[in-house]
């Protein structure tokens, strides 16, 4: 079962990403306003979704850690935070490439763009915090609190286009996307969701292994020496 997850999930995810790219680039029709340029949407929309899903996982895992004190929850939170930084980076970069030919600018301080940038930098700060605290118990507790506070930004990102005037359009839905485009988009969302799961699972396993090593470390032994030897 674990073997299927470790190896099978990344393979299925990669195959779907390739198929999704083919669907988005070659099968889906051009868009009447944006021409071929819009095709980056097939990567931008899924990565944007995952950049909100990842912090949601971190928030739930952080709450679980505080309630149950299980180290597995802390490992899941850390994995989710790293995956979150990755996907919000992808979301910002693809969005910027999308924005230049459509809006006319690489970047503007629109509420949607700004709130995603805050999410991105906040989780980089979160990961930095984790590396500053040596005591595993304190590290897990402090980072859990930090993660819960950062999570406030997730609904803000989602609703930013509804609450405030923005350059970014509102969420598309099946009625605003032609079925010939919605099909390829669904494939790409599924593909990137599996990439998300594969990365989360792999990083979680690494986190668990790190916890085991941390616990077996004799106290008083300098950490730097251990880092070098590992």
């Amino acid at each position, binding site marked *: 079962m674990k073997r299927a997850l470790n190896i099978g999930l990344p393979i299925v995810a990669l195959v779907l990403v390739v198929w999704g790219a083919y669907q988005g680039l070659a099968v889906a*029709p*051009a*868009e*009447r*306003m*944006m*021409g*071929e*340029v*819009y095709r980056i*949407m097939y990567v931008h929309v899924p990565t944007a979704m995952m950049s909100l899903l990842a912090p949601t996982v971190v928030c739930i895992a952080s*709450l679980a*850690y*505080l*309630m149950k*004190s299980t180290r597995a929850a802390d490992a899941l939170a850390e994995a989710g935070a790293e995956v979150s930084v990755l996907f919000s980076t992808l979301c910002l970069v693809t969005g910027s490439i999308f924005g230049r*030919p*459509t*809006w*006319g*600018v690489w970047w*503007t*301080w*629109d*509420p949607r763009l700004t709130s995603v940038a805050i999410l991105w930098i906040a989780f980089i700060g979160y990961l930095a915090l984790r590396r500053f605290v040596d005591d595993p*118990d304190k590290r897990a*507790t402090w980072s*859990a*609190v930090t993660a*819960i*506070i950062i*999570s*406030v930004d997730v*609904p*803000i990102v989602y*609703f930013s286009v509804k*609450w*405030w*005037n*923005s*350059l970014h*359009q*509102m*969420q*598309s*839905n099946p009625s*605003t*996307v*032609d079925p*010939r*485009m919605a099909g390829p988009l669904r494939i790409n969302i599924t593909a990137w969701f599996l990439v998300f799961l594969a990365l989360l699972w792999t990083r979680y396993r690494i986190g668990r292994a790190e916890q085991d090593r941390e616990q077996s470390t004799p106290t008083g032994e300098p950490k730097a020496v251990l880092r070098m030897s590992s």
Partner: protein
Amino acid sequence: MTNAGKKRLVALVAVLVAGGALSFIALGGLEQNLVYYWNAQELLDRGEKAYGATVRLGGVVKNGSVKWDASTLKLDFAVGIAPEAVGPSVVVHATGAPPQMFREGMGVVVEGRYDGQVFTADRVLVKHSNEYRPPAPGEKASEIYSTLVE
């Protein structure tokens, strides 16, 4: 208090702080102060207070208002709330080629200064809706996605 009890208390405080911050942002009327752009009516309502300051004006390019002079690169158009001739509108003067999707009836956000007569734009941004449609039969995407500068 036990360690586990302390952590649950910490969780409760964190959730309360997060929930409080979110409800303040959602319900605190921040949209009054946190504004990416004004529409034509909001700009006109501000009257003299809006003159001279660098602001953003958002709306729709009025039908029949676009004048493009390829020799001087001057682009004049009007921004309103609807593309039709009714409702408030602001005359915009810009220089240089606009983004390729710029055309009449399209959503735009312009950055610049308003002097009571003319909005002088430093930057013209095109707003895209959340609609994704293929070209209608007989229409070619490349013809619509074209620039004013050939």
